């Protein structure tokens, strides 16, 4: 399958999951709001745990619904979104390197089979892993997985630098990137610091930081919806640009004698 089809397939998969996550959030909130109203009206709503025979009083459900909607549901949806961003960016890098493994080493000149200059790109992979792989394409696959795995632990700005140095997509723009960095920083803060804003968040979020040190992350609905839209827009734009960059005969080396980034006419 051509690379452009693979990229479109990956983008479609991610976009489907973005839409599904959005629908799940909206429908779950609506369902909980319904329960909240029933409880507020004093309707005989109750959930009985068959094992403990414990009955959740309706009054309790009203405040629980508020917490479930604005904290648990919003935060878990937000975490999912952050994972989808990772799946898209790293998935795109994986597809690109699979098609053009020489791009793992920007100093490699495919025309001569030699490296340019003295600088060497290094990918560390355990020898036992290499010995286990049988042929060159399996070894390349192992190397690509290693590169992608290493990038997983890097910040999104590093992901974009990696992409920029290999594909000149021209997107996302600086404002969108800053918002994505903030989004990932907020996710990391929820995941690793109980949502309390620390210096790590401020460093990662940079100019798009939304909080001061010591604040608590709040995933309010307008922000969450903005993140859905952002991720969708970025995925669509990048997929389109990457599809063009990988088109019928658009292959160009960006490193060494860099091109303008425009595809070569067929």
């Amino acid at each position: 399958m051509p690379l452009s089809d693979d990229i479109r397939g990956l983008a479609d998969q991610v976009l489907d999951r973005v839409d599904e996550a959005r629908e799940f959030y909206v429908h779950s909130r609506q369902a909980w709001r319904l329960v909240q109203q029933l409880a507020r009206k004093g309707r005989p709503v109750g959930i009985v745990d068959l094992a403990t025979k414990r009955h959740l009083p309706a009054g309790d459900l009203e405040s629980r619904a508020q917490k479930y909607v604005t904290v648990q549901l919003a935060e878990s949806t937000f975490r999912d979104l952050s994972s989808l961003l990772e799946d898209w960016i790293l998935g795109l890098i994986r597809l690109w390197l699979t098609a053009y493994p020489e791009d793992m080493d920007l100093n490699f000149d495919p025309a001569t089979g030699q490296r340019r200059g003295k600088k060497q790109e290094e990918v560390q992979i355990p020898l036992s892993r290499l010995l286990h792989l049988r042929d060159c394409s399996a070894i390349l696959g192992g190397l690509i997985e290693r590169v992608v795995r290493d990038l997983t632990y890097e910040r999104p700005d590093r992901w974009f630098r990696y992409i920029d140095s290999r594909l000149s997509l021209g997107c996302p723009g600086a404002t969108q990137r800053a918002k994505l960095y903030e989004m990932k920083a907020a996710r990391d803060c929820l995941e690793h610091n109980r949502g309390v804003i620390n210096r790590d968040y401020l460093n990662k979020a940079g100019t798009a930081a939304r909080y001061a040190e010591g604040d608590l992350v709040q995933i309010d609905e307008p922000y969450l919806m903005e993140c859905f839209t952002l991720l969708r827009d970025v995925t669509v734009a990048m997929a389109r640009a990457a599809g063009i960059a990988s088109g019928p005969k658009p292959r160009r080396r960006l490193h060494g004698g860099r091109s303008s980034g425009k595809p070569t006419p067929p």
Partner: protein
Amino acid sequence: MIDEMTKDGLRVSTDGIAGPYLMVPVAQLDAVLAVLDRHKVRYWVDADAISLDNEPAITVINFGRSGQAARIQAILDEAG
């Protein structure tokens, strides 16, 4: 402010973790938001509203974790 459905005063509810919130009939939403805006209260509103038994639809104004329930309640009470 009076809840036009129940004829009781609008009541700010609280949850220790989620912060305060206010359930309000959609017909009154603009008036309530105008009062909150005047006092620079931060909030966000659910994107939709739920109607039960064909009664007027209710939506939720969320004040978030940093919302101050007592202050907001006082603002609404004062607004009459």
